[in-house]
Every structure is written in C-alpha cells, then in structure tokens.
C-alpha cells in the first residue's frame, strides 16, 4: 500500500523526477526528497502559508497538495525566484524595507506576492493585503511586507515599460 510512485514534474523550469508515497505532501517531497528546503513547514493545516509554492501559476499551500498530484504540473518554488545574477525585485525590496526578521514566513510571502504581481502588476494596497491574507508573519508585522510588495510592483512596472 505504501508503494512508491514515480512522479515527473517541472520545478523552476526543469524537468524533475522523484519517487514518493501517496501520503507524502508536495512540501515533504520538495524538502525531504528533493532537498529543496526553501519552502517552510509551518502549520500543516493551510493557515500560515509558509509552504506556499506556485502550482500551474497559482499560489497553493504545498502542505495541502500530495506529491503525486505534481505529476505533469508546473511548480515554482522560492529556489527559482531569483535570477542567476540578481535577486528578484520582490526579494530586493524585502531587504530594502526590512520586511523580514526570522525569515520563516518569507519564502511563502514572496511566492504569494509573485503570483499576485504576475496577475495584477499594479495592485492597490487592499489588493496586496487580500492576496497575502493567507500568509502569516509573527515578527516583522505586515506593513513593511506590504510596502515592499507595492514598491516591487513599481520597479517591475518600470522595467517592463522600459523593455517595451
């Protein structure tokens, strides 16, 4: 019954194969099987958002996805957010605005924010707060995080219009 299944999926642009049992969550597969420990385990009930990853472009709690469900899907994790030479603008702005202290919630916040800005490059402050409502931070406070996301949106918009 606990037979392992071979799962083929795309993680951060690369085809990845891994073996897992059905009872292993995507979060466990990322952290324990693939040794991608950027996504954090918080509550395991979908409340805290520390394990947020993008599944086919949508933010999800990877603790509430089975590893076997990743078959044929496209997954993006915090490990794929930065470019090869520079941080993602969201990461840069989190540093500039001091939007993290202990950092456990940060990967989840960054992935939720990335999903937001891809769908809505020019969000209002309430829209940012709504999009991040599923991510809990117990040390920095949310204002610095929200400011960083709004600032990153400005920077990203600037770079897009320059490119165009």
């Amino acid at each position, binding site marked *: 019954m606990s037979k392992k299944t071979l799962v083929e999926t795309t993680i951060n642009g690369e085809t990845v194969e891994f073996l897992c049992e*059905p009872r292993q969550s995507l979060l466990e597969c990322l952290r324990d099987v693939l040794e991608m420990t950027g996504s954090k385990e918080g509550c395991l009930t979908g409340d805290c958002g520390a394990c947020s990853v993008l599944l086919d472009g949508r*933010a999800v*709690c990877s*603790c*509430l*996805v*089975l590893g076997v*469900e990743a078959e044929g899907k496209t997954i993006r994790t915090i490990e794929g957010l930065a470019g090869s030479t520079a941080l993602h603008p969201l990461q840069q702005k989190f540093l500039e605005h001091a939007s993290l202290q202990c950092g456990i919630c940060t990967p989840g916040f960054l992935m939720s924010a990335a999903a937001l800005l891809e769908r809505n490059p020019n969000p209002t402050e309430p829209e940012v707060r*709504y999009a991040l*409502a599923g991510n809990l931070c117990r040390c920095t406070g949310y204002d610095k995080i929200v400011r960083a996301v709004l600032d990153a949106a400005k920077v990203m918009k600037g770079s897009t219009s320059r490119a165009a």
Partner: protein
Amino acid sequence: MHAFSYESPSTLDDALKLMKAHGEKARPICGGTDLLIQMRAGVRLPEFVVDIKKIKELRELKFSAKGGLRLGGAVSCIDVAENADMRRHYPGLTEAAHLIGSLQIQNRASVGGNLCNGSPAADTTPALIALKARARIVGPRSEHEVPVEEFVVSPGRTVLKPGELLVQFLIPAPAPHSSDAYLRFIPRNEMDIAVVGVGASVTLEGDKVKAARISLGAVAATPLFAAKASESLIGKKLDETALATAARLASEAASPIDDMRGTAEFRRHITGVLTRRALTIAAERARKH
C-alpha cells in the same frame, strides 16, 4: 499521514469503478483543503484516495441563459470567482466562493468539496441553496439528483452512499429581474469560519417579490433552507414590514449552539440582521437585471 493508495482516473466511469471497488474505504479528493487536514488529524482514514480533478464532467463550468448553470463538482472556488458568467448571473455564489479561506485555499478548494465536507458553516452551501441548486449524484448503477438543502444530513455526513460521487450542480437559469447575495458574519475581515452565513435570492415582478429563497449556514447542525421566511415575502413589497417578518422567521428557523465563535442568542440575532441585508442586496441587484 497514514499510508493509502492514490489513483487519478481521467474518466467518470473509471472513477466510479474505483469508488465501487473500494466502497467505504475510498474517499474522493479534490482540493484536499479539508480532507488532507482531516487525514493528518486521524479524523478520516481512507485507504484509497481517488483524485477527481481530471474528470471532464467534474471540471465543467457551463452557463446558458436558457439552461442555467452546470457546475462540475471539482471546479475550484477561484475558477468560480473569476468567471464572468458567474459574477454576472450568480453574484452571491461567486462571493461565497471568494470568501473561503485564503487565495491559496480558493485556488485548490472546490464548491463540491465544500458541500461534501458536510460542515454546517460551509460558505458556498447556503449560496447554492438560495439558488435552488440540485446536486447530481452518480453511483455505480444509477444516478439521481438531490436538492442541496437535503445533501448534508449531519455535521460531516452527507447523503452520498459508498461508491457514489457528486458530479455536478445544476442551477436554474436566473429568471428576469432576479439575483442573489451571500453574507457571512466573522469577527475579522478575511480568513475565518462563518459565525452566521445567510444566502438570499430574490425575483421581482414590478415592485413585488415574485419568488425568494433564504438559506442559513452555521446556525444549525446542517445548512438550512428557511422555507417560512422565504414564503413570507411572496407577493409583498420588500419594505420594512416584509424585511422584519422575513428576518424574524429566519431567526426562528435557526437552532444554533453556543461555541467559541458566538452564543446561540447572538447567532439568532445576527441571522435576522444578515437576512435583511442579504435580501436588500439581492433585490438591488435584481432590479438591474
């Protein structure tokens, strides 16, 4: 989590065969936002988990002005919330789907799963009841339809028998000058479970109510259709007297409990308040249709 087997059939037939073969030991999974938590907590321990997200009938969201809505049991809350037909024709159900948990949850959770989980506080269930939705259930040998208000039989338990799947919701086409609304009370803005939820749909004829349905969540062991409150409005103007009567009858239909989210007395009171507000919003929307 305990060990279990997993299959993700791509046809309804295959899913039904698996459900039949494993009977009570099987449990369908859609978004997993309730089931995986229950499995971790040891509340539900299925030996066989059938992923229904690849099945065409369960993924369908089809609206037509004549036929109404066919909403697959596995359509995610976010797909409901972002659908233009849903927003226009069933704004109350759309709002309910967009109220559940966080975006991470809405991206995975389904309206069907919300119902099958059997919680008295499910947000989309009163919204479905207000719209007179029926659940199409398919079993190994036969299929049948059940009004959504009859689907949940007690907290966590539904009419589904072993081997059966909730395949679709069938929702009537909106009548002219009709609309719906769903409101819930929680002590914060987002990310909470309903203390009280009220759904309402209203069809107007001139300045009178031609048809109305009021539904209640989190104020009884199961989501309720408030029949007397609904009927009290027929043929009436939606004025202060009619609203007060409907609110009182809705409060009387509630049989809430005291718990950490609120007292029974508070819940009964809020049921009346939200009934008025939901009816008023639904009627305002109906005037524009």
